[in-house]
């Protein structure tokens, strides 16, 4: 091989208990190129990047920079080797100014001990020089928190450049940018490329990738599919190479029979213009409706709005033919709805409380007697019954829930909502972070619930799960519903095509959108 590479990851493998996350992956980046890294959710892109930044230690394989083997044990090591990352979620220090954010931890100093001070003048000059090189127009002394998301991103890029990075990894950098801002990002990327910097560009947006990239590497199921020059590829070719994995996981036999309509959603729009807009669908009794889409499709936002956790600007929801207003989770509960949130630890469990308390907390009214005192014995009995029914593995119902595995915590949360006797269950990534055995058990519970006539909406980022479980699959992209597929007719390719469908980049000045986005 005559070609030289600035970065080579050779034969990387990484296993986690129960999952082979990466097997024998090779990734080579040429100097001064934009290299797109593509794959479905869970294809192993993030794991590969975490290996690059020393967050995970690969079981096998080596990393070479400019032909030299290197050992990277932390992001700091990576930075010292000239590799930096622009994360999807940016975390600047909002109350400090722009230049302090860039030079954090390495301020230019003047004077001598004990009279050493930060040299603000030099810091401002250094910042301006970098800004000029990349044609960025931001006041180095502006308060960072007041900037738009796009400017904060530019700032992160400048920070990477200030470390003399040779490889900059960008994770979904355009997911919260408007059309103009994307153009600006691309012009910065072009300048970096002309200065010999390589960019690893992780994105799902086909058109953008075909426009900006030189090379494209595709991954699937933790394996390396191949690397092509962008010129050789089309959207369809990429999709075919990204999907088409074998359905190795098994799903319970489907015994549910969807019948009449239970819930109707008409033209539902978020108050946040970047979130879901004009979503309409119907949900039937005994039906499992899957919702598919890529990161940023606003699926979580949609179900949380259905449950009264997020504000709705317009549109109607009716249940059993009657229009309903749901403004809080307790409204949702009154309408026999239940929500299993995506972030189990953040919005689901009460870590220091027992399995019993976690089970009954949404349903205490049921255990009150005439004097408004709780009948704990009945609550504990119910918790025990559910532990047995869902086969939750816990030493006892008095164990703190934080001592349980993710799958068992999820079963306790399911039990919590089942006790409220819901008719409509909203399940947001119900099997995320759960090992394979427990997954199957959760699938069985979901199927049973549908068989009993309950209506289920299940968000999933795993294609096989969507296809294996859903009666119908609704696909979203950038807050828009792009299609509803019948479960039997759906294929991974079709879902992917709908999920990657882009809104035509609107050129309008949507500068203020970030403000409302952050509040959302």
């Amino acid at each position, binding site marked *: 091989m005559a070609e030289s590479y600035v970065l080579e990851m050779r034969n990387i493998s990484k296993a986690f208990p129960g999952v082979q996350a990466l097997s024998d992956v090779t990734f080579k980046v040429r100097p001064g190129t934009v290299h797109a890294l593509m794959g479905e959710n869970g294809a192993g892109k993030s794991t590969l990047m975490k290996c690059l930044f020393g967050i995970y230690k690969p079981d096998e394989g080596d990393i070479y920079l400019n032909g030299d083997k290197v050992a990277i044990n932390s992001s700091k090591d990576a930075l010292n080797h000239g590799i930096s990352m622009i994360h999807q979620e940016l975390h600047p220090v909002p109350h400090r100014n722009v230049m302090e954010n860039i030079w954090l931890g390495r301020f230019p100093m003047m004077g001598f001990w004990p009279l050493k001070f930060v040299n603000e003048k030099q810091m401002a000059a250094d910042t301006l020089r970098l800004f000029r090189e990349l044609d960025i127009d931001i006041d180095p002394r502006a308060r960072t928190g007041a900037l738009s998301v796009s400017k904060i991103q530019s700032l992160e890029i400048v920070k990477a450049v200030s470390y003399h990075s040779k490889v900059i990894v960008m994770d979904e950098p355009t997911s919260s940018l408007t059309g103009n801002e994307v153009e600006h990002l691309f012009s910065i990327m072009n300048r970096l490329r002309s200065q010999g910097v390589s960019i690893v560009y992780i994105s799902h947006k086909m058109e953008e990738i075909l426009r900006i990239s030189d090379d494209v590497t595709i991954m699937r199921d933790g394996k390396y599919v191949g690397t092509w020059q962008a010129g050789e590829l089309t959207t369809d070719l990429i999709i075919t190479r990204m999907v088409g994995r074998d359905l190795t996981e098994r799903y319970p036999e489907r015994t549910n029979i969807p019948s009449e309509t239970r819930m109707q959603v008409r033209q539902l729009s978020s108050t946040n213009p970047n979130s879901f807009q004009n979503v309409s669908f119907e949900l039937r009794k005994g039906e499992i409706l899957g919702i598919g889409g890529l990161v940023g499709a606003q699926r979580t936002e949609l179900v949380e709005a259905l449950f009264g956790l997020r504000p709705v600007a317009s549109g109607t929801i009716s249940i059993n033919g009657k229009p309903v207003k749901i403004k809080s989770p307790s409204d949702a*509960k009154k309408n026999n709805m239940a929500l299993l949130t995506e972030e189990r630890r*953040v919005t689901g469990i009460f870590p220091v409380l027992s399995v019993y308390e976690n089970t009954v907390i949404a349903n*205490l009214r049921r255990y009150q007697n005439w004097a408004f005192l709780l009948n704990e014995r009945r609550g504990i009995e119910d918790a025990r019954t559910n532990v047995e029914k869902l086969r939750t593995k816990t030493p006892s119902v008095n164990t703190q829930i934080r001592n349980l595995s993710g799958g068992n915590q999820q079963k306790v949360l399911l039990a919590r909502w089942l006790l409220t006797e819901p008719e409509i269950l909203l399940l947001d990534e119900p099997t995320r972070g759960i090992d394979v055995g427990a997954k199957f058990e959760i699938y069985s519970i979901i199927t049973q619930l549908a068989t009993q006539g309950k209506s289920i909406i299940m968000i999933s980022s795993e294609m096989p799960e969507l296809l294996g479980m859903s009666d119908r699959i609704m696909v979203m992209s950038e807050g828009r519903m792009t299609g509803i597929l019948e479960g039997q007719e759906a294929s991974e390719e079709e879902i992917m095509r709908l999920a990657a469908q882009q809104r035509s980049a609107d050129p309008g000045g949507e500068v203020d959108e970030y403000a409302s986005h952050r509040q959302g």
Partner: protein
Amino acid sequence: MNTQAIVKVKDYLAQRAIFVVLILLVIGIAVADPNFLAFSTLRDILQQSSTRLIIALGAAFILITGGVDLSAGRVVGLTAVVSASMLQTEVYANRFFPDLPQVSVLLPILIGIIAGLIVGLINGFIVAKLHVPPFIATLGTMVGIYGVNSIYFDMEPNQSQPIGGLRPDFTVWGSGYIDFGGGYSLPYIVIIAIFVAFICWVIFNKTRLGKNMYAIGGNVQAAHVSGINVARNLIAIYAISGALYGIAGVLEAARTGGATNNYGNMYELDAIAACVVGGVSTAGGIGTVPGVMAGVLIFGVINYGLTFIGVSPYWQLIIKGLIIVAAVAFDIRKYMAKK
């Protein structure tokens, strides 16, 4: 004994370290001066701990929700002054309300408790509806309530004179006792404190409000998603703790037979100290009534016992400080070991 049994004993003791410390303290003091082990000692410690227990229980409500209440001491002062101002004997020369008739003793007591409850409602509103962090919200009311109390206390004709000459049918609540004969007796105030503790135990363990309190402190976002009305529950909890400070304030006035606007100053810190030593987590979600009782008793034993054996008050402060820090450091280690 096999190793498993040793681990079990260790675990058991670790869970109940607070009671072990309490027993060790008593033993240590008793070795230094065996006279400590008299019934009168126990009675005196319980009597001194009674109002502290009620305040600490109020503080525990707030701590378990993940908050903190700095206004407790000043609410005690306010309610002591308010109730005392209406409970002076008619023959007393310097009456706060010279023309006030001899109303039932219960009425001023109730007014005092309600004053505390109102401050609690205000705290709850500021925290739950205005989303001001509890530390700041109650810092504000702590300062403001002292001002309100001082204005009241300074009114004509009282003009900041200590309120004295309280009616005996009131002071008996604080200083009276049931005499069993043979030197054995039980102060009313101790009975009241134990009764209040029992009510709190019922609220903590047997009511929706109690379970919601633990849930809000354990994970406020999850509580919201579970359909708990977080704001309403928080306001109710702050109101209850305000009422508890009110009870404590009224009892302080009864016990000491008077009141000034400086009553209760800094009691909130003693209350928080007793809570954390008793295993209440300042991070929220954890705490029990027996734990708080033990925490209060430990400080009661230290105050009384160390003075009993002649330890200087300055050394007592150092010992108390060490116990507070050690208790929390120990508690946090217990958590880390599990992680």
